[in-house]
Each structure stands twice: as C-alpha cells, then as structure tokens.
C-alpha cells in the first residue's frame, strides 16, 4: 500500500499518461467493435472522441476502467497495464479514474452529499461507510466541490429531486471527489438541453484544468467538441479516422466520420 502511494506521488508530479496499445473488443466473436486502437493521451486538456452512435466510443472509454472487458491489447495508465488487473488491484486503479455518465448514474435515493462521498468509497471500509463515518477531510472536500459546482444549497436534498443539469453537476463533483488522475466522460451532455450542455462542458473543463486532470469525453455534438476540446479524435466503424486539433477538423473529415454529407448543409 505504501509503495503504491509513493509511486502515485511520484506520478502525480507529472501529467497523467494514458496509452491504448492495439486495443480490440468484440462482444460477439468475429464482430469486433474496436479494431486494434492505438492512441496516446498525454498531459492535461480535454480530448473529445466524436463519431456516430454504435461506433465503439463508449466501449473504448469503458475499457479504461474495465466496466467493459477488452478482448485484446493493452491500456497503460502511468505505465501500468490496466487490462491485466484483477480484484483489489483493479479497485485501486479505478480509484484513480473518475467517470461521468450520460444518465448521471447518481444513487437516486441518497442525498447529494452522500452521492459525492460515493467518490471516496474506494478509501473507506464497509463499517465506516455504513455508519456514514467519512474522514472530515473528505467531508470538507465534498462541500468545497459542492460550492464549486454551485449546489451548496442542495447538500441534503435527495438526488432524485434534482434537474438533469444539477444531476450532472453532482456527477462531475462525485468523480472529482476521487481526486482522479484521469476523468472519463461518457456522453455527459447527451441527455441535456443545448444551453445546459455548454454549461456542463465549461464546468467540467474549468474544474479539471484547475486541478491538472486530463479529460476524455465521448460526444455526438461536433460544435461542442470543437468549442471545448484541445484535441479531437474521430472514430468510425471501430477505428480512429481523425486525430488532431479542432481547427484541423474539416467537412471532409466529418464526412469520413459520420458518412454522407446532406446533414452538413
């Protein structure tokens, strides 16, 4: 445990590094969803993965924290192969990876503050969690993050009485409670209206930049991706077909990513 902590502290001095090596995934044998993805994401900034529905974006980022089991290849976070981890080692790796979900995935019957403290569940024992005995530093951080996402007044409100935008703010705060090395966001704005989507993306980008946490976001909305991302990865048919700065993304690329061209008019 101490050796691991020391390694983490060393690594924390440098920006997080995530690398996909020939990553493949097939849900059905012979029908790969991901074709040997090679990608390196270094340092901070927001990386947007765009592409049509069903092209493997979600599968790709869910392979990182192993909510989906990769079929082949490797994923390295700070040099550690995440695909080889089992049991406790996997849980320790997951603690360092925050995740924001399309449908927020808050625990509906828990209060906002309890949902935030879920982000610390990798660090507290079962009895302490059951009795809600979280360390005071965790509770203080939870209230700070609640201030940062503008929901201080809702600490003891149940999650199921919040609006979509408020829920996603809680989702972001919960992920940041983990003090992650890396934040994954799986279509974080797809269930939100355009105005709230911009607010949520701005909030996520701002909070993560201030903390030096790199963000990888799956999204449909090309304009939103161009506005907030420092790097865009375009996927089509389980392959990376574009990788570059938002300014380099042309209509030709979009045709290649999404197919057709009528929708671009």
């Amino acid at each position, binding site marked *: 445990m101490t050796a691991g902590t020391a390694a983490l502290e060393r690594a924390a001095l440098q920006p997080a590094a995530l690398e996909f090596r020939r990553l493949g995934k097939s849900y059905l044998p012979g029908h790969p969803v991901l074709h040997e993805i090679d990608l390196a994401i270094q340092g901070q900034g927001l990386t947007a993965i765009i592409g049509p529905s069903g092209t493997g974006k979600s599968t790709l980022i869910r392979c990182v*924290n192993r*909510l989906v089991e990769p079929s082949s290849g490797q994923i390295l976070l700070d040099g550690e192969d995440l695909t080889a981890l089992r049991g406790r080692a996997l*849980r*320790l*790796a*997951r*603690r*360092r*990876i*925050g*995740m924001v*979900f399309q*449908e927020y*995935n*808050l*625990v*509906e*019957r*828990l*209060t906002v*503050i*309890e949902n935030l403290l*879920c*982000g*610390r*569940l*990798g660090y*507290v*024992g*079962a009895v302490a*969690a*059951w009795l*809600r005995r979280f360390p005071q530093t965790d509770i203080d951080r939870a209230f700070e993050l609640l201030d940062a996402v503008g929901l201080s007044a809702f*600490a*003891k409100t*149940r999650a199921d009485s919040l609006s979509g935008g408020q829920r996603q703010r809680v*989702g972001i705060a*919960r992920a940041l409670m*983990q003090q992650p090395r890396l934040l994954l966001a799986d279509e974080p704005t797809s269930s939100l209206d355009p105005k709230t989507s911009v607010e949520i993306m701005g909030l996520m980008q701002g909070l993560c930049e201030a903390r030096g946490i790199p963000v990888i976001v799956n999204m449909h909305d090309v304009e939103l991706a161009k506005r907030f991302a420092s790097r865009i990865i375009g996927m089509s048919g389980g392959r990376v077909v574009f990788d570059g700065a938002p300014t380099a993304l042309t209509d030709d690329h979009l045709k290649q990513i999404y197919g057709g061209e009528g929708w671009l008019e």
Partner: protein
Amino acid sequence: MSAPGSTAPAPGASRAAFSPNWLGRAGWLALLLYCIYAASLLDVTWSRFVIGLDQGAKFLDRMFPPNFSRWEAVLKGMKESLEISVLASVAGILISLPIGVMAARNLMPGWVSWPARALIAVCRTFHPVIVAIIFVKAVGFGALAGILALVIASIGFIGKLFAEAIEEISLKQVEAVRATGASFMNVILFGVLPQVFPRFIGFSTYQFDSNVRNSTMVGIVGAGGIGAPLFVAFQRFDYDVVCAILLAIIAVVFCCEILSNQVKKVFGEQRVAASG
C-alpha cells in the same frame, strides 16, 4: 421511431383492435366446470349450508359472554406468542438479508445464487405448522421450536422478495459506485441497499405481522405460545374461554399492525433522506 406499418388491410375491411383469445376463454370455462364438479363432490349444497348455520348459532351462543376468568393463562400465552414472533422476526430478517443478496442473480455468479435460491425454496415449501411439527420433534416442545419454525418462514418470504427487489434495481447506479473503486461491500451499501431499503422495510413489517398471527398457531402443535391454551379450550368445549382468547389475539394483532405502519412511516421512504 415508429416504423410505418406495411400491413394495412384492404379498403372497406374493418380492423379489429383486439383479437379473441380462445385459449383464455377455454381456460375460464374449464375453471368454472371444475368448481361445479368439486362442489358437487364435497356436498357443498344450500341445505348443508343451512344446517351449518344452525350449528353456528348454537356455537356463537355458547361463546358469549367471553370468559376471562383464566386471564393469567391467556396473558402468559399471549406474552409468549409475542416473544416468539419478535425473536423470530429479528433473527429471520437478519438472516434473510445476506441470503437475499446472495440469491440476486444480477449481482452474484450462478454458483452463489443457485444454492441461495434453493435454500429459499426449501424454506418456502412447507407451511409454518408443518415446520413447527418438525422442530417440535427435533428440539422438543416449547417456544424454541416455534421460533425456529417462524425464522424459516421469514427467510422464505423476505429472502425471496428481497432477492426479487434487488434483481429489479437500476444497474447504472451500481455501475457508477463500482467505477469509483469501491469494495464489493461498499457497492452493496451505497449502490444497492438505498435502492431496495424502503421495500425491504415493507417486506419485513409484513412478515412481522404474519409472524404474530402464526405465533398464535404454532402452539397448537406444541411449539409454544397462546395456541396451546386455545386448543385445550376447544377440546374441552369451553367456548367462552375460546372467545376470550380470540379477542386477545385480535387485540394483539391489531396493535402490531399499527406498530408496523408506524415503522414503515419512520423507516420506509424518509429514512434515506433523513440520514445525511
């Protein structure tokens, strides 16, 4: 989203919104015929019913006024019944919690859930009175046999419904808690239990009510509680004493139902919001 239908009928033909369910109609008819057959076989006729009414009137006449002269025995039996039901409920609920979690097929691998489900099925197979007879033979006369019988009944009922409640939860919430690196126990505590806790309280209070009723009955087979004096009073044709005991049972069951409703109010919906 809706695909245009390609099965439009020929113009002029009327379209039926509901197709006749011949199999269902045949089933209803078969049930009706069987009821008539069974009634004829068992001498369930109007004249038999009238004879029964006559006897019932005599029985009622001998029941009133209720005879509370043996109130000490009634009180002692009632107290024992209540103790049996409370102990059996607490033990049964505590045991059925882990068994219910283990039996949930969406959380557990088959090699855990199937044995747990089999155990629940065995607990549900027999009526509490049969289980009570078995325990009376196994551990001897008295309250222990009654408690064990009702623990088994509680595990069968709460375990099954609790497992089913867990199988209906939203796995998205569980996934999010798991993604934070939480241990399995913490995933259960924060991802699963909050989703099923109000229903668990509902099942538990229902089973407590049920245990209170059943605890008055296991005494008939010698497993402790008010059932034994009741049975003795019946056999001696002391129907006024029977009436007194029945009134005592009604009072206790009624009080317990009020109590469970209060428990549901306190712990059911608001519990999670209140703890914060």
